[in-house]
């Protein structure tokens, strides 16, 4: 299976509202790796994701995806925390918005892969919160991404839905071999999904801890997940001191 691209991010300086948010910040992600970026709300995690997606360009530095500048790199599969569906398009057309060339069959496959059935002609507002996230995930999958960028994809969902979606996302990323960066403030997301956890904190933002989680995400036992969660929480508390 072909791995996703290597990522290399170097930020010499990035300011936001007159404040220096990032200074001399470096992050590398190996091809096929799933990295969770963990940190408190408002620390600037989403900004990193926006840089990797090529939508944030106002900074001194360089974001390389397989050696190419981020805006020119292959289209990433981007999953937003608010699902960000176009309310005036049907569910099927929301998918076609990012890949107009795909057949109805491919759209149906992408929906089925995320557990959505008979929703093609529905409007996004007619779906539950969990189903809207699934649709956002299906849209990201439709571009056959080698790079998946997930911004708090499980926030504000009830626990059962979160568990289902975590398992689904893990399977889909592992099967595709994509490189993935997951932004979250919840250690549980990282403990279940990531190969590696990068905890960021401070102002300017620095890497406070870089933890490798040995067991493969799809094969983790409940005990391992709880142990990883504890380890991440401890590192987060220490980084806040």
């Amino acid at each position, binding site marked *: 299976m072909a791995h996703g691209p290597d990522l290399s991010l170097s930020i010499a300086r990035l300011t936001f509202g007159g404040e220096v948010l990032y200074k001399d910040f470096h992050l590398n992600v190996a091809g096929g790796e799933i990295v969770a970026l963990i940190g408190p709300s408002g620390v600037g995690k989403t900004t990193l994701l926006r840089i990797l997606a090529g939508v944030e360009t106002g900074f001194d530095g360089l974001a390389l995806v397989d050696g190419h500048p981020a805006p020119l790199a292959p*289209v990433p599969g*981007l999953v937003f925390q608010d699902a*960000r569906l*176009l*309310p005036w*398009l049907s569910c099927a057309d929301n998918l076609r918005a990012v890949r107009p060339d795909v057949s109805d069959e491919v759209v149906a496959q992408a929906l089925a892969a995320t557990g959505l059935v008979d929703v093609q*002609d529905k409007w996004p*507002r007619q779906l539950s919160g969990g189903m809207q996230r699934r649709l956002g995930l299906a849209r990201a999958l439709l571009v056959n991404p080698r790079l998946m960028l997930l911004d708090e994809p499980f926030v504000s969902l009830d626990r059962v839905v979160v568990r289902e979606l975590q398992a689904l996302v893990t399977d889909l990323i592992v099967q595709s071999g994509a490189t993935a960066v997951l932004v979250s403030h919840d250690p549980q997301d990282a403990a279940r999904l990531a190969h590696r956890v990068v905890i960021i904190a401070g102002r300017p933002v620095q890497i406070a801890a870089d933890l490798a989680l040995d067991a493969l995400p799809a094969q983790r036992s409940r005990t391992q997940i709880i142990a990883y969660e504890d380890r991440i929480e401890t590192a987060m508390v220490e980084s806040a001191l």
Partner: protein
Amino acid sequence: MSPALDPRPVAPRPKGEAWLGWASFLLMIGLWGAAALAVNSRFLPAPWTVIAHISWLTNEAHLLPDFTVTLGRAALGFVTAMVLGTVIGIALGRSRLVDRLFLNWVVVGMNLPAIVIAILCFIWLGLNDKALILAVVLNKTPLVITNIRQGVLSFDPAFDELARAYRLSRGQTFRLIHAPQLVPYLLTAARTGLSLVWKIVLVFEVLGSDSGVGFRVSLFFQFFDLKGILAYTLVFVAIVMVLEHVAIGPLERRLLKWRTDQT
């Protein structure tokens, strides 16, 4: 997200209540008829007298040509103003520089008395259709610009980010992201614009034309022909109602189906 694009469902009007709209219209005619019977004056003819007069004006006089001319002028002025206003409104909404440079022009255009614009156009271009339509366009365009500019300013930046992340082309971004967000503002501009254009065209026809509904109504006025004035008014109201229920209403329901559809 602007209120016009709020994805929360809007309850559709219950179908069983549609007759209320027609009942209110009949009530209005009924009140008019009762008042005419009570007053019994040539200055307030009854609705049935006016309806009979419409038939006579259509067959024996100038009702059809008058309305054809006025409708043509209104349509030309309306379409030109909508197109111009939309293009300029988008330019103002998208470019801060253009907005700073020209917003005051729009404010001036909004507040210049219609009659002043009409008189200036008639003096500069003569008493002809070109001057009349130009005056209509100059009056109506600032209103469209204001609406469209407001629509562009309320674009949700989150959707622009989605377009950039998925590398949508400019054309795709306009078609899939921007145009749908403009629809409610375009519909508002069209609705308010239609009513405004009608009124302006009629006033300008009174002022400087020898044809059309406005010209004819001014003749009726000179002869105190209340029957004629009310006949033309009734036809005018009928056309507005048809436009609303056959064109604008269905178009609005179709374009904003995503807000009301319960299926």
